[in-house]
């Protein structure tokens, strides 16, 4: 039995009828066509599917779409404003914080929440804050530098 849901994604309202078991990440990717949110492990381990649900970083592979009924969601596609990159996106580009790019959307989303909560994080705090996001290419060093860059940039805005 399908259930009606209303979700705002990146500022656009969506009304759909979905199976109660439909995962939020599949709702975003397959119904809305927002394929920037990736599935890495289906078990909340890797963080590739991280999105913001009402401002909180959430792993969308282990949340049902129906649980997000009424929520405001931001995905990687909604992070840039008026065509200009979010400081975190800029930081990842500037500091080479990505190689294959698969973990990147989730990593960037999780990191935005990190600097929202802690505008001037230490390297250790960045590493701790991103423990729920895995990357297999970079060895994390440049990711930490990207987040530092973004925190600094955001403070200057």
């Amino acid at each position, binding site marked *: 039995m399908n259930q009606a849901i209303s979700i705002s994604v990146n500022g656009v309202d969506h009304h759909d009828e979905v199976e109660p078991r439909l995962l939020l990440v599949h709702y975003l990717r397959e119904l809305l066509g927002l394929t920037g949110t990736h599935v890495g492990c*289906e078990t909340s381990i890797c963080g*590739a599917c991280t999105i913001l649900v009402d401002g909180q970083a959430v792993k969308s592979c282990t949340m049902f779409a129906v649980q997000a009924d009424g929520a405001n969601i931001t995905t990687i596609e909604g992070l840039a404003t008026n065509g200009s990159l979010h400081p975190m996106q800029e930081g990842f580009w500037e500091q*080479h914080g990505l190689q294959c790019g*698969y973990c990147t959307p989730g990593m960037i989303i999780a990191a935005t929440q990190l600097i929202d909560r802690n505008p001037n994080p230490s390297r250790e705090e960045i590493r701790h804050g991103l423990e729920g996001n895995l990357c297999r290419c970079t060895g994390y060093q440049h990711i930490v530098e990207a987040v530092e860059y973004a925190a600094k940039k955001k403070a200057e805005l």
Partner: protein
Amino acid sequence: MGKYVGQRIKRTEDPRLIKGLAHYVDDIRLPDTLHVVFVRSIYAHARITGIDVTEAVKSPGVVAVYTGKDIATTVGPVPCAAALPDLKVPDYRVLATGKALFVGHPIAAVVAKDRYAARDAADLISVDYEELPVVVDVEASAKGGPVIHEKFGNNIAYTLTSGEGDIDAALKAADRIVTQRMVHQRLAPVAMEGRGVLARYFPGEEELTVWSSTQIPHLLRTQLALMIGIPENKLRVITPEVGGGFGSKLNVYAEEALLGWISIQLCKPVKWIETRRENMQATIHGRAQVGTVEVGCRNDGILTGLRYNVFADLGAYHQLLTPAIPTLTGLMLSGAYRIPAIQMNVTGVFTNKMSTDAYRGAGRPEATYVVERAMDIVAAELKMDPVEVRRKNFPAKTEFPFHTATGLDYDSGDYEAALDKALDLSGYQKLRQEQTKARAEGKLIGIGMSSYVEICALGPSQAMPAGGWESATVRIEPTGKVTVMTGASPHGQGQETSFAQIAADELGVDLHDVTVIHGDTAIVQYGIGTFGSRATAVGGTAVLIAIQKLKEKAAKIAAHILQCEASGLAFEGGRYSKQRAAAAATGVSEPDVAVGEAPAGALPEPDTEGRSTLTIQEIALIAHIAKELPPDTEPGLSATYFFEPKNFTFPFGTHICVVEIDKETGETTFLRYVAVDDCGKVINPLLV
């Protein structure tokens, strides 16, 4: 250093990746796509006595269910490209028939209208198993016990001895022999994006397109054509964005062939996206060697010989390069040292596990671990500093090219310089003092080091299973935009940027006028792919030489238009100039000739009257319009080059690591890590 080469340039591939607009396989959505879910063995070794698909076929949304008997004679076996003497090659069918040989072995494929429906139906398939004794331990199963492939009579796939020098004499001549058991644990490569395949067959055109998350689009096309039985020129393989490979996608997998075949049966697009659980079970594994190293040395620390007897856990079947991986260990057993005699005796053993194959270094890190561990044990045995044992056995900088007893010729090296730099950067002497002090206080501080040599730029075709060259086509379009097509298949290495840097500098054009295309067999000339630290060394060289070829032609056209000899032309900043060549001789400089802007929507009209300079982009237009070409000149401006490397490259370095171990908890903390690596020519310091 050029305008671009050597500069820190942000990657041109990044904007799409950081905005979430890139396309990995699962992001490609075709209308009417069916989804495939596999039923896989839950036993490592079992006879399949029955498969009941009745309920699955009736499940809502199900279009088809296939089992081993449906495809046994129609889809060819999973290929192995490694050729070793007397290698036993089991018949590796794309779905299990008769026996399941590892956990994750695919048994049935369910095709349904969406992935949830396919999964529902897969759960309704009932497989009857008769469990069989499992082969897991390589040393035990090499001696006897249950046999995996009955027709071979035992579990030994091959034995191989490699190396040069009289090892018995070398060990006999040693003052001491140290022996150490070495265990390289099996691991799963775990790229962030698992494997994924989308296949679409057009029955009218008889064309099959396979999108696959692979490192080797062209090799995959050839092998899939053979497996599926479709002409290679009717099969197009596209690698969209690939979310990491690390060797695990340097392969040809059962699922890739099956998806292609199913698409042909159903005349619909079919997609399979690997789950992480499948990725752990049924994507290749790495390492998995158990062996013993014996090192002979003199009392002064000089090595006389090294022997490594090793059992390699191959898994149940051979994937593309499975048996060849341990042979790479044998090649690199000389490490950074002069060792007069080296011998490796490898026994490749079948086990009830997924195949091992190339993973991050593929057999070479195993060699480095063996050799470096041996150096430390020798140092401990002789009560010498591990730095000094290494230093004493390095070949001198002047001895290169250096021939090793593993049969390689290291092209260049200065191992002592790398070691000294690492010692200097880490403050090694002080570290040792601190370590002594910390130990006196009851703390556990360890200082580890490794001086390594890598074998990269794989490789000369003579040393590779099927071609070790790489290809490039460089084309300047009528509008002056530059298209570079590389046979390499970058998936994170950044060659859309670094190859554009090479091309932009060589052609004197703006970086953003260059687009690098890869990973589409319908567009790009045949290539080998990205693995074995080869793409820039071999593929980048192909780009460079293709450009040189293109410029030879461009210079001929320029000379014809400018009415001078090609040898009288100077090329600078993307511009051929006859005055400049003369001016350089006389020291008089000429101002640039202004080139008229074309109106929007029209090609610029090349005005060649009375010109003294021409840009290479103007020459491209002239070459396409083809009204003013020198006699016997082919129209167009493009060049293709297939670069065959003469040798591997052998970068080297020294790493020093300082760790503290908590005595109570065993927790390890990194205190210091110093890495000194020979990078060769740095094209983009941001990416190195």
